[in-house]
């Protein structure tokens, strides 16, 4: 079920009312959330519910066993069972065909024809997200950072919680499970803020991202015949599209969770206002970056290592794995590699933590230096996005090559997309003004009165109705 679909417009209010009015006890609320989460996931393809349940069962049992033993060898074995089960699912469903194809190509290069068949399987939606979420639980229990839950219902509900099930934020057990085990009371302010965040998320997804997608798809499909302006605009629109799509999804997810009395972690913190790449990675897909930091980068030694070579290695690993997590394609690996290259100068010179605060706090505009830094960082990010969006690495290089050699600057692509450019300008303007807040529609009551806020909400909702594409489109991150 898509957040931007007719079904979800029925599903959400019905579930909301039943949850607060009928299932008032904690246990029943959890059972109800589990049931509707499975319904939400099964709406797409009920067969893949088995994988979700399998992953939940394995980690629930493994964690319980971990709490019953102190023998290191036995505990390690239990952890390995969880790792193999979850990463095994990913390996089969997401990476098997990629490795088989690459092996066959590699061996044919040295004259050996391997006869290995690929699997005809589709990628289960959200598999990369919920496997990472359950893994974090088992690893934290293994590290004795958290205690395992004894009741299976809150745990299963945590793994399958529908607002964030298919595309995150990837929640930590220590943050989310306690919210399932404590009684929840309806909080007006929390619910109201949730609705505002949902509205802003829908605007980013439906009005901005989906309309950018039309131009982006056409540009990447016909890049060989296009000029500098069109290709530049295509790359710029894709940067906006992927931000609108993914941060829009996260806003809807976080907002929905707030309607049910849950607080999910922040996933985006206005990343395109970053002054360097390190800041960008503290603001983009925060739940994944921190996952890799805590479960991969730090165990590798992080930045507290003896040699610079080891530091380069650790940074390279984390970015390449992060790229590969997105999909079984060299384009994602190159995207990750590029970001590693961008990131390394800062960390090697010890300047990667220069910008921990929000840019130009208390001011309307950034300084010229801040502005230049923001633009340069954005350009680097856009270049990397070209690899992320292209079908192949070769296509990405061709695209870049044409972008800087097909010197033609027709105004037609700009004129044709004036309404979209206006929409993007509004997006940037609102997010700039709200950059110290949790999301774009978190208004301060003393700065904007109630009728003013009401008019903004109504105009936004009407714009969503009027500018939504005819068929709801899938969120980009569903494929990862």
């Amino acid at each position, binding site marked *: 079920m898509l957040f931007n679909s007719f079904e979800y417009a029925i599903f959400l209010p019905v579930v909301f009312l039943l949850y607060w009015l009928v299932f008032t006890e904690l246990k029943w609320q959890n059972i109800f959330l589990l049931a509707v989460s499975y319904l939400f996931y099964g709406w797409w393809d009920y067969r893949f519910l088995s994988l979700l349940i399998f992953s939940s069962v394995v980690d629930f049992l493994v964690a319980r066993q971990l709490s019953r033993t102190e023998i290191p060898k036995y505990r390690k074995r239990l952890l390995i069972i969880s790792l193999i089960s979850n990463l095994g699912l990913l390996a089969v469903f997401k990476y098997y065909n990629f490795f088989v194809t690459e092996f066959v190509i590699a061996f044919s290069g040295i004259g050996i024809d391997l006869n290995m068949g690929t699997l005809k399987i589709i990628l289960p939606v959200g598999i990369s997200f919920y496997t990472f979420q359950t893994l974090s639980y088992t690893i934290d229990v293994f590290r004795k950072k958290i205690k395992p839950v004894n009741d299976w219902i809150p745990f299963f509900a945590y793994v399958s919680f529908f607002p964030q099930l298919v595309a995150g934020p990837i929640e930590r057990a220590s943050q989310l499970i306690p919210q399932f085990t404590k009684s929840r009371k309806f909080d*007006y302010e929390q619910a109201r803020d949730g609705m505002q965040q949902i509205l802003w998320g829908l605007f980013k997804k439906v009005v901005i991202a989906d309309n950018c997608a039309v131009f982006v798809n056409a540009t990447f499909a016909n890049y060989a015949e296009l000029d500098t302006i069109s290709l530049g605009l295509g790359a710029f629109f894709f940067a906006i599209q992927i931000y609108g799509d993914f941060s829009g999804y996260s806003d809807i997810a976080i907002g929905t969770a707030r309607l049910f009395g849950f607080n999910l972690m922040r996933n985006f913190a206005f990343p395109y206002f970053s002054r360097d790449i390190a800041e960008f990675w503290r603001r983009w897909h925060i739940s994944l970056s921190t996952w890799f930091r805590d479960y991969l980068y730090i165990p590798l030694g992080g930045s507290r290592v003896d040699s610079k070579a080891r530091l380069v290695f650790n940074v390279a690993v984390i970015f390449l794995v992060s790229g590969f997590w997105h999909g079984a394609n060299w384009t994602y690996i190159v995207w990750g590699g590029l970001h590693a290259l961008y990131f390394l100068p800062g960390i090697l010179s010890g300047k990667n933590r220069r910008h921990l605060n929000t840019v130009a706090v208390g001011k309307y505009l950034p300084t010229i230096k801040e502005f230049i830094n923001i633009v340069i960082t954005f350009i680097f990010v856009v270049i990397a996005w070209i690899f992320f969006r292209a079908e192949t690495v070769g296509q990405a290089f061709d695209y870049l090559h044409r972008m800087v050699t097909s010197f033609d600057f027709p105004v037609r692509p700009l004129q044709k997309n004036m309404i979209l450019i206006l929409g993007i300008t509004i997006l940037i303007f609102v997010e700039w003004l709200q950059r110290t807040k949790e999301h774009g529609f978190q208004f301060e009551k003393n700065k904007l009165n109630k009728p003013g806020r009401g008019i903004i909400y109504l105009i936004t909702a009407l714009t969503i*109705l009027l500018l939504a594409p005819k068929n709801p489109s899938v969120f980009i991150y569903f494929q990862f």
Partner: protein
Amino acid sequence: MRPFIFQVMVYSLLLWLLNWGVGNYLRTYETKDLMETGQFFPALRWQEYYQRKVPIDLLMLGSSHAYRSYDPKVIGQVLAKEDRVYNFGSSAQSPLISYYVLKEILEKQRPEQVVMDLYYMVFTNDNQLRNRRYNLGYMQASAAKTAFFQDGFSTEEKVILTAFPALVYKDYLKPKVNKLLGRPHLLKKQGNYQGAGFVSNPDTLSIEKLKYQNQFDYFERETNEMTESNFEYLKKIKLLCDQENISLVFTSAPMPEISVNKIKNYQAFYQIFSELAAKWKVPYVDYNIQRIENLSDKDHYYDDDHLNASGARIFSAAVADYLLKDKRSSK
């Protein structure tokens, strides 16, 4: 919780009212702007139909190939049925739409014959809300209209059509904004409404464009994309005609030969229709297979898909001759 639910309801109501106002304003692009310039053919067709007093003997159904190719005046003259021929083709008219158009006609009329133009493209898509709405929206209240609404639209579409005009007419936002800004806002004219449902276009497409800028260069439709429900409704049309004692004829209007040759599997589409027609004992002529000699790609098409005004005259005379012969032979 009550204040929250109350607030959500108030906002929902205000949004719904806003949607109602804006949607109905956008609708005037269809009912006023396009109608006043004679460019909104579905409404013109239904309006003329409800005003006419003369009975209809011969009815045409089908897609744009139907309403741009079969000239009722020419056909009426040859068959000596002047003013008794009506073309009820409409853009991308699928068999489902044709069926309910026929049902609506049968509420007041008893045509002797129905000519159904078969265009494979409309068999590959059940999904075009706009084209269904064009007919539903301009039908008068009747049992056929109610049945069309019940059968022809999903629950989601029914909700949208009933309560969300802003969603229904949102395509008109851009031309309406252009109009408000004093910019050109009308669509490029796609022909002239000639009455009795027929639309003719006097333009002629150059051979170069036919050869090198042809939509069928990228043609990738397969016969397995033709949906079951479209064949179901074609069968319903056949049964309805049998039941009402109406003679049914299948035809396929000609496309430029260059375009047909670009469609690698045209023969397979033809095969499906001809086998079906043989099975149901319905006469079928595909004028892309049995080509009319006088029609040339150079002079008789206004785009890579449709006949122009002079092409339609030649074709209509040929169809009328065929219907005449068919009638004589069946007697």
